[in-house]
């Protein structure tokens, strides 16, 4: 393999991973901006999407119908999460939300572990296993599907938030919750919708990525964390998050290719910690100047 082909190959795998982190990052910021909940169960939506599809498929359903059912069940789980454990909190802070969602993530992880065991599972690719060769690098239809999903999700969300009344209501409640309520927006509905949407996107991502990276009861936490990295670095906006997610994916792809594939997750998390430190330090400096 020539160096050019190698670089192309790492770029492709980096963009694939990056699309996933971008979509998950969007899930984080959708929920965080509207409800101020840092939802650490976001990654579990991905896991549920993949594992439920695998489970239904094994039980004899067709791939399409089991994927459909998996998405529906994940949305129900996300809505239940908001309704049953997050809304009843009396004096919520970001930290209590964090503890609650981390605990919920462990619970759902434990349930899946009990039901389907600890082995990694895989779903068959949607469009066959054909491999397309481009300048020495190989690309599968599944990779193209993942990239297509990212484009579909971002344009869909942008149109929804910009053009529809409910999308505008969503943006209004993110900016000022009390003001939005005074204008007659049903806040509890909006909150439920945000969790449901995050569940929907997460499950979809989980199903699309399962043929490439496989799925298992424990894939949620790391995928979710990297989505959080993308959301934080991207400043909680959709374009920023997508850009940060893709950059993170590329960084990871090249680290895995040229340095060590075992340590690629470490690099991603180091990026997050360093960015948090950097932002805090520059922020406190700009405060002093003012």
């Amino acid at each position, binding site marked *: 393999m020539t160096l050019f082909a190698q670089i192309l190959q790492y770029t492709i795998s980096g963009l694939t991973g990056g699309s996933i982190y971008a979509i998950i990052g969007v899930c984080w910021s959708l929920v965080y901006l509207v409800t101020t909940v*840092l939802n650490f169960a976001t990654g579990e939506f991905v896991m549920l999407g993949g594992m439920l599809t695998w489970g239904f498929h094994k039980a004899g359903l067709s791939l399409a119908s089991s994927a459909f059912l998996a998405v529906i069940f994940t949305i129900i789980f996300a809505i239940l999460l908001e309704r049953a454990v997050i809304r009843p909190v009396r004096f919520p802070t*970001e*930290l209590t939300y*964090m503890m609650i969602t981390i605990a919920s993530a462990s619970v759902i992880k434990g349930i899946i572990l009990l039901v389907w065991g600890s082995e990694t599972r895989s779903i068959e690719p949607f469009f066959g296993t054909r491999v397309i060769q481009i300048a020495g690098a190989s690309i599968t239809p599944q990779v193209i599907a993942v990239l297509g999903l990212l484009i579909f999700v971002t344009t869909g969300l942008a149109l929804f938030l910009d053009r529809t009344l409910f999308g505008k209501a969503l943006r209004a409640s993110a900016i000022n919750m009390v003001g939005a309520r005074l204008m007659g927006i049903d806040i509890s509905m909006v909150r439920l919708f945000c969790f449901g949407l995050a569940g929907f996107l997460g499950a979809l991502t989980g199903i699309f990525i399962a043929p490439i990276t496989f799925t298992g009861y424990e894939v949620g*936490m*790391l995928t979710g*964390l990297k989505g*959080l990295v993308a959301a*934080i670095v991207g400043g909680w906006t959709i374009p920023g998050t997508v850009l940060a997610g893709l950059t993170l994916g590329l960084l990871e792809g090249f680290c895995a290719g040229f340095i060590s594939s*075992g*340590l690629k*997750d*470490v690099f991603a*998390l*180091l990026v*997050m*910690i360093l960015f*948090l*430190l950097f*932002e*805090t*330090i520059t922020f*406190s400096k700009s405060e002093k100047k003012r």
Partner: protein
Amino acid sequence: LSTKKEALMTFVPWIAVVVLIVLLPLASSSNYVIGTMVFIAIYGSLAVSMGLLLELAGIFSLAHPTFFGLGAYCSAILAAKGIAAPWIGMIAGTAFVTALSILIGAPLLRLKGFYLACATFGLLVIVEIMLGQFGSITGGHEGLVGIPPLSIGGVVFEKDLQFYYLSWAFCLAQLWFLSNVMRGRVGRAIRSFRDSEVASKSMGVNIPLYKLRFSS
């Protein structure tokens, strides 16, 4: 008279707890109960120091289990490779982790609120991956085996009952020490200044117990 009464009232619960713990093995000699109680003591002391950070200094550090694990690995590696006796390994592990927690704590404690929580959570995952990756030193995902039993001055700690008394002694001593610290000058200092150095030191307080967890 009232101060004497107050002093008595603070001592009564302590004495009650100590008596209860000393007497429990007489009531039930089953290994399962004793083993579970050992873990209660270990997790209890972990929770106490984590709670101290959160309650007093307002630091929600998810990296606490990381220090717990690193302390255990450090002393266990020293003991298993025959470099040092287990009890020396315990002290070395404590010193190592205290130094490390101050080193890591100094930059990380600049972060506030959920930023700190996110960063420490990242740290937790990083260390977990690294421990799995460097299998030749840490034993990888299978864990470290062949740690010699702890022995202090000719007494070898092998049975569950011995660990039971040792871990509870550590746990109660730590509880007593920390409750005194909280009431004393340092505690007030943490409350008022939220002093970062003291906070990171208190992260390292209960590490001697970690060796226990791995050999029990």
